[in-house]
């Protein structure tokens, strides 16, 4: 039998075991009298190689189980998690969850989501990926490090990891939901800097996740290219100029400073609890007409892709902001009950915690701003920020932080790298001040897709 065939058989057995254990704990949750019970179970296997200073530091094998039980009794909530699978541990977990439910005050929106239907088909499982072991992690990790260090002797790899993993996840509840799926991936990333004599450049980090091994080589190459290009470019950093005006954000920086607060504010619970700046604005224009933000759980190239959510509800692609208008909010079962609507399949989290509410894979439509050089031309003179290291308040939308991997642009060309440069602004205001969006959406951190964005009205403070 091939290793892929063995992996398939093992994975099928693992998933069946996770479903059975989840079902058992769910029964125990109800056995003590709870009205409703739900269990999320997961079995994860990972093999990884960690490199420091460009050399192998540690090979690691990890196999872990997690079971999380949520019970509702007369609208009261209790939750218990364990990584132990013996009968005594499961009973202890069920008792603990029910004891908590006996203490908490009732909430009429508490309860399991009803209906929903079958999981959405999403191709997360690949037998060849699932069959990878520690030898492949060590080998691919060494190749990843070699790719970077061979580019230039000034490159220093503080840390790099290469991990192969697979998981089996199930959600079982007392209303009859019983869904399960397997996932397999390879993930890698590094923290890289360049050193030239006494000149220590700022570090750059990037992380990627691949499910289809056919895309592994290209992804490794792209990640190595980005890390080394930015790290080398950080050498010889000088000063920027202080001003308020246009700044070019890389896709990652655009996500962190501007898009993330909008997505947080589009959470129905944030609206219901009075901590969303988008409350009461459904259907209104909240951003530049070129901005469209979607959540896409069906894209297997994004790490958060899933056919069902943390409550077992099917997931669907959803437009949050369409042509600058707020089109919809994200709902899990709880928020849906509060508003009297159906869950949108946005319960998130793992077995170790109560289901939360959030996105699976944020995608922003590209615009017509052209390629990177076109956006730099449009900026003319000012700051190009590659990574944002700072604080973003998702409630007020205020952000402030250091522009990392930043370049000072003059005449539409890179004049010099800069350091000690801070940027600040308000995400909700700046969403309306977008000048141009790049013509290509890039995958960021293996989990989102966005274009670069040229935005006006940003405060830049140079050291």
């Amino acid at each position, binding site marked *: 039998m091939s290793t892929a065939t063995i992996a398939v058989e093992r994975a099928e057995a693992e998933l069946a075991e996770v479903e059975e254990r989840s079902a058992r704990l769910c029964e125990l949750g109800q056995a003590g009298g709870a009205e409703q019970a739900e269990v999320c179970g997961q079995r994860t296997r990972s093999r990884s190689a960690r490199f420091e*200073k460009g*050399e192998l*530091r*540690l*090979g*690691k*094998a990890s*196999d*872990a*189980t997690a079971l999380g039980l949520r019970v509702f009794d007369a609208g*009261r*909530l209790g*939750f*218990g*998690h*364990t*990584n*132990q*699978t013996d009968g005594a541990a499961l009973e202890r*977990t069920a008792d603990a969850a029910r004891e*908590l439910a006996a*203490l*908490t*005050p009732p*909430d009429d929106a508490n309860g399991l989501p009803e209906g929903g239907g079958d999981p959405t088909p999403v191709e997360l499982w690949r037998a060849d990926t699932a069959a990878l072991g*520690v030898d492949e992690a*060590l080998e691919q990790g060494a190749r990843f490090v070699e790719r970077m260090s061979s580019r230039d002797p000034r490159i*220093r*790899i503080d*840390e790099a990891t290469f991990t192969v993993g697979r998981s089996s996840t199930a959600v079982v509840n007392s209303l009859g939901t019983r869904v399960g799926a397997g996932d397999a991936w390879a993930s890698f990333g590094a923290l890289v*800097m360049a050193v030239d004599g006494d000149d*220590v450049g*700022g*570090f750059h980090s990037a992380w990627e996740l691949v499910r289809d091994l056919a895309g592994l080589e290209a992804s490794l190459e792209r990640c190595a290219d980005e890390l080394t290009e930015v790290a080398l470019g950080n050498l010889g*950093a000088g000063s920027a100029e*202080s001003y*308020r005006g246009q700044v070019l954000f890389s896709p990652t920086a655009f996500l962190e400073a501007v898009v993330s607060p909008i997505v947080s504010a589009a959470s129905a619970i944030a609206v219901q*609890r*009075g901590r969303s700046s988008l409350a009461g604005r459904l259907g209104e224009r909240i951003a530049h007409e070129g901005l469209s933000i979607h959540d896409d759980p069906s894209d297997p190239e994004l790490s958060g892709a899933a056919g069902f959510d943390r409550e077992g509800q099917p997931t669907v692609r959803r437009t949050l902001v369409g042509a600058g208008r707020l089109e919809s909010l994200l709902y899990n079962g709880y928020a849906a009950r509060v508003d009297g609507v159906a869950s949108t399949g946005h319960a998130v989290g793992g077995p*170790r*915690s*109560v289901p939360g509410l959030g996105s699976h894979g944020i995608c922003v439509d590209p615009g017509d701003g052209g390629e990177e050089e076109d956006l730099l031309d449009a900026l003319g003179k000012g700051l190009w920020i590659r990574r944002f*290291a*700072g*604080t973003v308040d998702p*409630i*007020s939308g205020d952000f*402030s*932080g*250091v522009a990392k991997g930043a370049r000072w642009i003059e005449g539409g060309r890179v004049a010099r790298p800069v*350091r*000690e440069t*801070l*940027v*600040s*602004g308000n995400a909700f205001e700046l969403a309306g001040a977008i000048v141009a969006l790049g013509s290509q959406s890039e995958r960021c951190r293996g989990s989102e897709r966005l274009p670069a964005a040229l935005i006006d009205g940003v*405060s*830049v*403070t140079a*050291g």
Partner: protein
Amino acid sequence: MIDEPDPTDLLQEVLDQAGDGFVELRSHRKRTRGLAVEKGRVDNARTSEHTGVGVRVLVDGAWGFASTDRLEADAVRESLEQARRVARASRPATRQPDLPPVELARGRFDAPGVEETLERPVDEALELVLGLERAASEASTSVQSAHCSYNEVFEEKGVVTSDGARAWTRLVRPELSVGAVAARDGELQRGYEAVGSTGGWECLFRRRTGEALAERAAKTAVDLLAAAHPEGGRKKVLLSPSLVGLLTHEAIGHTVEADFVSAGSCAAGMLGERVASELVTLCDSGRSELVDGAGGTIDVDDEGVEAGRCVIIDQGRLVSYLHDRASAARYETAPTGNARAWEYGDAPLIRMRNTYIEPGQHTLEELIARTDDGLLLDGCANGQADANGEFMFGTREAYPIRNGQLGPLMRGANISGVAFDVLKTVDGVGDAFRWDLGAGHCGKGQPAKVDAGGPWLSCEVLVGGRQA
């Protein structure tokens, strides 16, 4: 006294039959209780149990690591064999030399507050969070949402190594946070207070009551509605103990972690050099120095080394890096007890514990009075450090100082600087000390519970305010 079996008995049984080579077995039982309330609704009422054994081996100069969630001798033996297989499959270009002998911890180490917290009924904690959320909500008509959360983490670890460590440690870390969101004319602002400690509730509320935290969170949220943004630029600032804590952690602590030094951080080659004002003595300790209850306290690190105090900067001179056993061997020095693993499935990394600047001689009033033009900054948000020494961290509140007088509240802004350059600008150190990183955690591939603090500090940094 709660009667628990010694987890090192099982580990020692496996170790005794483990054969040759370096072996480190670490059991970790982590139990958590958590409660969260927002706008009168309980969002989280949770218990968690996460238990297992991490096995690390050194075979022919290569490390291997594996873990099991079963606390049984057979399962630990299987993990030991798996760790050895992983190590044999690894062929590092540079072999890790055998670890030199060091003094390793043996015995039982119980942090204060464990029994008290374990025996405290959960309904007391529930009553606390419900009451504090209500207090924050009712503090002002401008407050339209409030939340309160409480977590306590009980950790029991056993560490045995083939070169002599056999330590059993227990501790508890409670954390509490209160937040409020105030609204006016469509604008939202947030106030947030958090405390965390190693110890019982007496430690947790040693400086401020829960009610004081709720009141402060609500007041900050309301006051920020009318507050302006400070202007950006390089400025003289007075940093509060919480921000001094972030400064020590982000600006200095990370750059002196020996793994980061080896990769080329700005602290490389600087031992013995003057890197700060002579007013600055900066340390990292596994103990809660000066004041009880620091959140990053550990008696023994995850390699079995007792976690004492390490002076990093002594009156302005860099005198030590932070080490685990392997880096200490490379640098031909003693390990500093900084090897920490988040959970049993994590291998130990070099991490900080409680990082701080020692107090000086000035009162806060004196520091304000001698500032002609600057900002008093308080309230910490997240932070980050870079290889070149450039750091940043967020502040939530700012007060202008003109001619020695404090002005009205302004909104916080991120501040930045280059680590050692900023410490050279220190021209005043306060006399009152506190641990004040609240419920802070550090991220470096895996989380670590850390604390940091110090006195009020006068120095120059870059403030990322708004431009006209």
